[in-house]
């Protein structure tokens, strides 16, 4: 147990040093696995880990026992406990074993669940609008508020989420005690544009809003800023050591033109990140896809306030524009982990470390969340390459 505690302390020290732009003993390994990859490695079907929360927690434990050298985890395997979503009658998710084959990844059914005419209510009091308008709209069980089924659905939803969060916290603590892993992130929040685009207006809806009701869109995003800061700190339970996870979606190039990105996407995202930083919380700027045109704007952020995560952004340019002021992470291509050979993975990792990690301030990771198409032997190769070439 003492050795495991020491291991956890070493890993924490290594990760924090890299995020503070220092040179740790070697490059930290933060791999962001999907629940589907973890299920595959653990020998569970996707249905089992979506529906059986004990198996979901156990899947990560099995993976940690199987793959040596993993240093961090985000938590339990899957984000979703399907039973919780069944309890409220979620219209926007399809799950393995219910709507889909038992080993098919969940599907999100995107739609404009918030309508353009909802903006005024949302701006006036977003919490009340979500509770009274949005939740019944997206949940079949809540269709008729005040009825027995709707009341029971609400109760089960709240109880289910509380159970899920408690089990997830216990799981994380047990991983740390058994395997010496540390959390890669604590807490989650979003860019206000993504809050609206991901679950409320949908991509097609918000793209129309850019032209049809730009002022209302801007006002709604401004209203969201303090909520998104608070939500991040609350879900992190006040932790300020580890970064907050901020998956960034609709700000990727080329969803918007540069002038639109500057006018609509950036100001409130910047405000959220600066608000979190003022509270002592660093953001993992998880820039999915391509963000190359926006690097100079991102450089406006306070030094060290983010870890800039590179998926398909130009790594050379990211290093040139942001390196030395922000820790960088990434960018082993997911396609390489899925279709490459272990030697190719090792060569790619060596190239990354040689070019971008020599001065510290670098965390190795895949470009994006590692899905079930990744080969286990390629993950092992990635870890071995860091141990071989990533020592300072």
């Amino acid at each position, binding site marked *: 147990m003492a050795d495991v505690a020491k291991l956890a302390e070493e890993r924490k020290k290594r990760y924090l040093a890299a995020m503070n732009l220092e040179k740790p003993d070697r490059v930290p390994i933060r791999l962001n696995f999907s629940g589907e990859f973890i299920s595959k490695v653990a020998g569970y079907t996707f249905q089992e880990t979506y529906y059986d929360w004990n198996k979901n927690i156990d899947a990560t434990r099995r993976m940690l026992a199987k793959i040596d050298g993993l240093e961090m985890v985000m938590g339990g395997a899957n*984000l979703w406990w399907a039973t919780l979503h069944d309890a409220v009658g979620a219209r926007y998710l399809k799950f393995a074993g219910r709507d889909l084959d038992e080993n098919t990844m969940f599907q999100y059914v995107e739609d404009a669940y918030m309508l353009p005419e909802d903006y*005024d*209510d949302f*701006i*006036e*009091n977003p*919490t*009340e*609008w*979500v*509770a009274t308008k*949005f*939740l019944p709209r*997206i949940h079949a069980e809540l269709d008729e508020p005040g009825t027995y089924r709707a009341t029971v659905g609400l109760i089960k*939803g*709240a109880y289910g*989420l*509380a159970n899920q969060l408690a089990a997830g916290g216990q799981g994380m603590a047990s991983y740390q005690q058994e395997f010496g892993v540390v959390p890669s992130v604590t807490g*989650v*929040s*979003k860019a206000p544009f993504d*809050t609206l685009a991901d*679950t*409320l207006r949908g991509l097609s809806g918000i793209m129309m809003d850019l032209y049809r009701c730009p002022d209302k869109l801007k006002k709604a995003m401004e209203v969201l800023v*303090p*909520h*998104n*800061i*608070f*939500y991040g700190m*609350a*879900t992190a339970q006040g932790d300020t050591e580890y970064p907050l996870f901020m998956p960034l979606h609709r700000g990727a190039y080329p969803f918007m033109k540069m002038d639109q990105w500057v006018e609509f996407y950036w100001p409130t995202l910047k405000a959220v990140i600066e608000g979190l930083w003022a509270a002592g919380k660093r953001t993992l700027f998880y820039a999915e896809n391509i963000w190359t045109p926006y690097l100079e704007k991102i450089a406006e952020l306070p030094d060290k306030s983010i870890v800039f995560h590179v998926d398909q952004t130009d790594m050379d340019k990211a290093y040139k524009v942001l390196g030395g002021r922000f820790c960088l992470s990434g960018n082993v291509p997911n396609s390489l982990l899925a279709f490459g050979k272990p030697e190719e993975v090792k060569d790619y990792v060596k190239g990354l470390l040689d070019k971008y990690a020599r001065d510290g301030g670098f965390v190795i990771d895949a470009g994006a969340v590692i899905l079930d198409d990744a080969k286990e032997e390629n993950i092992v190769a990635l870890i071995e390459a860091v141990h071989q070439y990533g020592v300072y």
Partner: protein
Amino acid sequence: MSNSMTFKNLPPAVCLPWDVKAKELGEIKGDADLIKKEWETLDMFGYIYIWYWVQR
């Protein structure tokens, strides 16, 4: 501007403001601060539950 919301511009962490509840409760015979603190803590959990469905 809409007038269909019960409250306007509620800050983060608040579903039903303590001030509103306190008026409904009337005179509090014991430790009002204790009741307020616990009310606001549970109100915050309600807030997180509501926003979970948006921020997931």
